[in-house]
């Protein structure tokens, strides 16, 4: 808490001392600090660079995919969603862009996000056949349902998330119910990761949906189950990800688009800051590394931001001009 206050005091000084031209066109900027680690890291990096490099009065506000996306379209607030998994609210974003309320700055994760059905590495080490869906079918009895010992459990995506639809459709397409599997709704993201943590603590079997880059997949090594179908992107977009899909077919998850989205008002008000956001993109491998560092040090977004800016200048300096990089480095030295 004290740290934030110091940042705030420092930022007031910074705003006062930077030339009026830079500060005035950017103004007050709100950045959605999503409730998962990678997004929080990116949000903190954006805040620091916008504040010290572009003289914006940048501020973090708590966020989550659905509420933040909806609020940006409807109310024009917050200004920036640094890591938005746009598949999950594709329609709203498309509409927002068409109505000139939103502008897409670019990819936040250059390789895209990775989704799939996973099993723990320790199970595959013992039985390599479990890396394929046929192997899992054959050993369905291993994956006990938490409430009904006669059934097998597949941990699906929490209720209300968009991935619940795609995971449910794939579950149907793969006809997992015929092998005795039943969908287990973990209720929330925390419930799902808690179930994974429990399975890993005791090396129990686990089979379910998850996504990367996440601290969970950085920390608990898992293997993505091969459906043997390859990726049918068209099928995925038109049917698998839609609740009205009558006859889902098997396809692997295509890499999902993870973008930085801003409000149109911010993009027109601060073109230079917007240009930075359109260049700022992370590679999954690097992000996993940072997330693992975060987990090991139990660091929050603020601390991992400092670690990132100090230890990986070659990653972030190309995103900004030399002049801005100088300002950011100066502010970093004062931390």
């Amino acid at each position, binding site marked *: 808490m004290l740290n934030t206050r*110091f940042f705030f005091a420092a930022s007031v000084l910074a705003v006062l001392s930077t030339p009026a031209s830079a500060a005035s066109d950017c103004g007050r900027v709100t950045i959605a600090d999503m409730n998962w680690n990678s997004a929080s890291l990116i949000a903190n990096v954006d805040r620091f660079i916008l504040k010290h490099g572009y003289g914006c009065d940048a501020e973090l506000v708590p966020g989550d995919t659905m509420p933040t996306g909806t609020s940006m379209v409807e109310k024009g607030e917050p200004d920036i969603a640094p890591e938005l998994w746009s598949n999950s609210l594709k329609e709203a974003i498309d509409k927002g862009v068409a109505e000139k309320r939103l502008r897409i700055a670019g990819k936040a994760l250059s390789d895209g996000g990775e989704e799939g059905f996973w099993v723990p590495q320790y199970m595959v080490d013992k039985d390599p056949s479990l890396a394929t869906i046929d192997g899992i079918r054959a050993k369905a009895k291993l994956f006990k349902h*938490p409430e009904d010992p006669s059934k097998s459990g597949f941990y699906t995506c929490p*209720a209300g998330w968009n991935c619940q639809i795609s995971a449910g459709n794939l579950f149907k397409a793969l006809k997992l119910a015929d092998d005795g599997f039943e969908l*287990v709704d973990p*209720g*929330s993201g925390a419930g799902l990761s808690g179930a994974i943590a429990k399975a890993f603590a*005791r090396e129990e079997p686990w089979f379910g949906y998850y996504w990367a880059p996440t601290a969970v997949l950085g920390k608990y090594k898992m293997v993505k189950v091969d459906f043997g179908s390859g990726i049918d992107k068209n099928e995925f977009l038109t049917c698998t990800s839609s609740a009205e899909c009558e006859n889902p077919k098997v396809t692997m998850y295509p890499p999902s688009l993870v973008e930085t989205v801003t409000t149109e008002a911010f993009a027109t008000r601060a073109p230079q800051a917007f240009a930075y956001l359109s260049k700022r993109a992370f590679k999954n491998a690097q992000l996993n590394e940072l997330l693992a560092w975060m987990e090991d040090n139990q660091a929050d977004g603020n601390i991992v931001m400092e670690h990132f800016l100090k230890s990986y200048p070659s990653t972030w300096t190309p995103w900004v001009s030399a002049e801005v990089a100088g300002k950011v480095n100066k502010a970093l030295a004062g931390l």
Partner: protein
Amino acid sequence: MTTESWLTKFPEMERASLVAIRKGLDNAYRDFSRSWGESIEAVFDPLLMFLVWLEKLLLTSPWWLVLAAIVALVYGASRSWRLSLGVVVAFLLIGYFGMWENTMRTMSIITVCTLLSIALGVPIGIAMARSDRARSVITPILDIMQTMPAFVYLIPVVMLLGIGKVPGVIAVVIYAIPPVIRLTNLGIRLVDKEVLEAAAAYGATPWQRLAGVQLPLAMPTIMAGINQTIMMALSMVVIASMIGVKGLGQPVLKSITNQYFTMGLFNGLAIVALAITFDRVSQAYARRTQRHLKGGNDA
């Protein structure tokens, strides 16, 4: 910034040591859950079996039979036709709006939570009333249980027992049990000393004094506690659904993430209807059984 002293900046613990403490405790908990998790899970197996059985019973029986049983219970407890009719209408509406299954799931888990809270809470309350030392130990624990944000203990419980009904019941009971304990204690302590002396003078044993004098006289207060417990258990339904407890909480969560306001409202109202049913029935039952306390003119 360079001249920081303890006067301008709170002398906080060094980050490294703080992290060491946090990691140390986390790892200790992880080791604990690794070595004891399975045996603790086995302890709760009978509870899980009962929960699954009750839910299946409510779900597989024909709806009219369940409704008839509920109304019979309501009438038996309250002897009020108006209340029974209200319950029938509420449940018919719930069924008509497609929330019957979730309502049955919620009802089964809430019934178990309430019974468990009473079975554990009343004896603890009695112990608290009989010994000041017990009270001074239990009161701060109750304060923690009522104010600690549920997620703080929810996820550790998930790590220990997995997701689903049992951790859900534990979370609900932790949150909902304090009123019944507090009010049992209060009710017994409020019983007149003279009445107790009179009972002692008639040669009543401590057990007879408790069962025959203190508990009956404390009953109105205890019933108020049980009521509060039921209400709090129902309000925890949504939180419990965050760790995979099926029922009315899940659609509420779903509506929060997707801004389906009407769906949230309907399911919220179904929770309210359940709460009012439980509340009115238990209150009417209490009033009916305690009528003799008011001079016994209409018993």
